[in-house]
């Protein structure tokens, strides 16, 4: 289990979702990923994508115009 970070700043939805999806393909179950975005739409879209594809959103937060979505990669993804 490892922790990763994905810089999706200055990207507009759905690019942060696409990058999250592509990054998760390289990860293993139990890994966690912080996706850092500047498009607030990511707060809605990344969790929606995770629900659909069976991953868990551990936390979302907004900090200084940035949005951070913490995702846990699940086995049956």
């Amino acid at each position: 289990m490892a922790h990763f970070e994905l810089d999706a700043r200055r990207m507009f939805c759905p690019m942060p979702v696409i990058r999250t999806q592509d990054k998760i393909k390289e990860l293993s179950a139990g890994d966690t990923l912080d996706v850092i975005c500047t498009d607030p739409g990511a707060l809605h879209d990344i969790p929606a994508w995770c629900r659909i594809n069976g991953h868990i959103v551990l936390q979302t937060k907004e900090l200084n115009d940035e949005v951070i979505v913490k995702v846990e990669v699940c086995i049956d993804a």
Partner: protein
Amino acid sequence: MSKAKAVSLISGGLDSLLATKVTMDQGVHVEGINFFTGFCVEGHTHAIRKKDKARPKRNNALWVAETLGIKLHIIDIVEEYKDVLLNPKHGYGANMNPCLDCKIFMVHKAQQWIEENNFDFIITGEVIGQRPMSQRKETMPVISRESGADDRLLRPLCAQNLPATLAEREGWVKRDELYGFSGRNRKPQMALAKEFGFTDYASPAGGCCFLTDENYSSKLVDLWKGRGVREYEMDDIMLLKVGRHIRPNPNFKLIIGREDGENKFLQGYKNSYTSIKMISCSGPLTLIDGVTNDADLELAARITARFSQGKNEETVTVETKRTNGETKTMDVKPLPVSEMQQEWYV
């Protein structure tokens, strides 16, 4: 026998939602695929403007997938799509929308996807006669053939009006449980949506991409004309969605923020473009696309001032910043309305 597997092209509109549901109800395992061309209409780019903040921020393709309980694969085709848009073999629709080539390209990508992922067929929400360019009786076989999908392409909403495809012949779906919709009338789709209990779907008439929009298309054509070359990058696509675009001279145009949300958005591009901001009063942030000399920059500053709180002042102070970091403060007279030429507006 294991379930047949289909991938469905999900645009986020009603038709692909229904086509997918109809196929799933026949026991087929369906996953969605959504292509991002860069021109897709997204709630979030609307959200750049403050006045739109009340609109729900949702990605309709994700919403459709979640409603149906299927996986969605979103594919970035921004780079490959350039050739589709710049050189469409079948030409453009009413605006800069190369719908037929676009459909062929997307189905072709879906065909590659099913080969790589061992799926059996592709479904789309196309309906014969629904759209003047890409969804006509004559174009349906063109899409199947030129995409390379051939009879692995099923259109569940109008299948009964078309020759049987592989999915029907193999018994993966029953033809008599598919539909025979045709024409522009959307009542049958709405009735079917009601039957399925779908209420919150995206506007049935809503276009799926900015290229069908007349204003957007004219800005795109202007961009190519201004640069003397038909090409674009992702930043260009985004900036065409934002602000007032004013071209007072062939060599440059202004992108002027219309309100705080847009000003803030444009701020993010300040290092890549010459910019103008108001100092003595509040007003928009302007980016300059093109090459400007000092006289051009002064004209741009006067135009910007015209959209500021100080538009009726004798002079206002502005700051200009070039991409090399050179910053200048100047006092300019806001351009009077009478001197703003209508043809400057892109």
